[in-house]
């Protein structure tokens, strides 16, 4: 036997030794559950087995998602301040009526629950600007990061990094920057300007709420768009180059149409996430000043849990309404994803 083959055999032995470390306990485990499994299969049949394996996850999902959904609905059609459903009087659609009771929906002050309407209008404003700019910035960033630039990998991770941070951490970082004596004001005064009280001005507060959430989430959407861009064959661009296509026309006529399925997914996902905005803004502005950055989820949270009188019924009704909006958006997202798959096929 030559030296090389000895070494190879030795390596094989070490390899099989390592394998044995995993294989032996696994084999023991399998032989231990073999008999009970056969027994179970005899009872539920081959067709029933997959469902049996699904039970643990379904049980978890059912307990913490499906059942609470129904309980929530139960709360929304009952009144009072009691916690237990059986103690709460049935009020039908009264909670919904209370939420939606408005003389003039364009004037929040004429609504019985003006905070609810205020939060809805704030959320619409937020979603409109946040999603719009998020998509534009993500697209531009993806286009730049898709080019052959220096340190491309580094920049890609820089843009993705905020996604990894907890929303509370994101909000705290920006709070330190934006406070009266924060980093940004220090910079402004150094330049000779006057301090700006960002969290006292409703416009500035909304601006920073939108800005920070874009900063925090952009990386995720950039990644989706970057994947879409990379899936476009480079040959197409070369063919366009041979065809004498101007860069702007390449973007509008080739890149954008081919990226559109990904764009649709990004838009719908951003919409869903935007409507659900809560934690970053809650930590950053607390919904203020006044109610100028109060969004729907914060309204639900405060109505149900954080106000003096915990109005579970009203919060539950608002949740059901929000849920309906999210359902429509989710269906749109599924549709968009299906279209993307159909296009890819």
């Amino acid at each position, binding site marked *: 036997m030559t030296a090389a083959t000895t070494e190879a055999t030795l390596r094989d032995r070490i390899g099989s030794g390592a394998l044995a470390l995993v294989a032996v306990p696994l084999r023991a485990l399998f032989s231990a559950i073999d008999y009970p499994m056969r027994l179970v299969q005899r009872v539920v049949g081959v067709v029933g087995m997959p469902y049996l394996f699904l039970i643990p996850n379904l049980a978890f999902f059912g307990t913490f998602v499906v059942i609470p959904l129904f309980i929530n609905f139960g709360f929304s059609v009952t009144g009072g301040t009691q916690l237990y459903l059986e103690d709460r009087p049935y009020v039908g659609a009264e909670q919904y009526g209370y939420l939606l009771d408005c003389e003039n929906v364009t004037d929040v002050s004429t609504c019985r629950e003006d905070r609810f309407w205020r939060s809805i209008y704030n959320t619409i404003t937020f979603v409109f600007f946040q999603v719009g700019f998020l998509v534009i910035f993500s697209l531009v960033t993806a286009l730049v990061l898709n080019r052959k630039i220096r340190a491309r990998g580094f920049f890609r991770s820089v843009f993705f990094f905020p996604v990894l941070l907890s929303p509370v951490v994101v909000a705290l970082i920006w709070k330190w920057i934006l406070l009266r004596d924060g980093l940004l004001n220090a910079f402004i005064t150094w330049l000779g300007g006057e301090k700006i009280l960002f969290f006292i001005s409703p416009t500035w507060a909304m601006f920073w709420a939108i800005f920070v959430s874009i900063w925090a989430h952009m990386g995720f959407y950039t990644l989706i768009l970057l994947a879409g861009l990379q899936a476009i064959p480079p*040959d197409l661009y070369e*063919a366009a*180059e*041979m*065809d*004498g*296509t101007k860069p702007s026309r390449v973007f509008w*006529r080739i890149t954008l*149409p081919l990226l559109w399925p990904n764009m649709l997914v990004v838009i719908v996902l951003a919409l869903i996430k935007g409507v659900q905005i809560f934690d970053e803004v809650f930590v950053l502005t607390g919904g203020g000043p006044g109610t100028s950055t109060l969004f729907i989820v914060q309204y639900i949270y405060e109505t149900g849990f954080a106000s003096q009188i915990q109005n579970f019924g009203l919060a539950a009704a608002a949740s059901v309404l929000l849920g309906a909006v999210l359902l429509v958006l989710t269906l749109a997202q599924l549709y968009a994803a299906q279209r993307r798959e159909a296009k890819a096929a």
Partner: protein
Amino acid sequence: MAHLQLTHVKKSYGLVEVIHDAGLEISDGEFVVLVGPSGCGKSTLLRMIAGLEEVTSGDIHIDGARVNNIPASDRGLAMVFQSYALYPHMSVYKNMAFGLENSHMPRPEIDQRVRRAAEMLRITEYLERKPKALSGGQRQRVAIGRAIVREPKIFLFDEPLSNLDAELRVAMRKELAALHHEIGGTMIYVTHDQIEAMTLANRIVVLNGGHIEQVGAPLDLYNKPANLFVAGFIGSPKMNFFEGTISATNGAETTMTLGEGTLTLPFALERNTGDKITVGVRPEHIDLAEKGAGDLNVIVDLSEQLGGETYFYATPEAAADQSQITVHQLGQRLLGRGEVLGLKLRPHQVHVFSADGGILRHGPGEG
């Protein structure tokens, strides 16, 4: 007129030079095929002509004008890509019209050109379809159509048939030849398939490792390869090579060792006794003989009966290190595995190469 000239063209990626001093002239209406094994630089050369790759040094002239720094779109060329590179979201019509729209050509003229090309390529009925709804062959036609409508000075083809199945490839090959006849344009075609090269080209450019090995008409390359590489690359199955040493030479004959025997060549070589040489013989230039009656004895490894012809592969009996020999015989020959027989090389049709791979002498031909 479209006349292309490459002078001292080099291409490097960083410190790695992939095209070494390429020089080539292509005249109007020629169908030139760049052929070579993968990684030989043929696609790079084509892409430099197209303007998709920068030239590191040297010049490219089209119709006398230096085009090194002229963008791809302004060189008056059209390219057909291996992947077809059709815009998947546009109809066949839009795909073909796109380049013309870029140059702001009037609509009626675009329409006329697209329809004429579609008719020529028999894809008129698919004009409203998306590329996805077409077969590979139809997509290839659309890609060619997209090139035709631009009425380019030179057509560039980058392995256009390699994504098609064998049968379709043969059919498309014929159509391309017919197309060249019809349009009469200058065409430069890259392939690694030497059958495509042999059947389509007016002239073949054989590349290897970034060097142009030989340029010539298909049969010239076949009959008079300039070196060992071209001899081995052109022709399928490939040429057989026998290494040996010159044992005697005089004004009329050269004798060389061949395994344990000798081979006498009917011509003189300007080489000394003891020099190493390689003799190349094509499979169809070897005759069968009784065991011991030929130039060398071989053991049959495998025979392929194709009906009208027979190929068999054999290993020399004497020298174990010699590579397998391929022999072509017309008609049907039944030869069993392990059978020992003699082979006779036709001395007039051998090619003799020096130890460094250059050609020393071609056999005088039939006789």
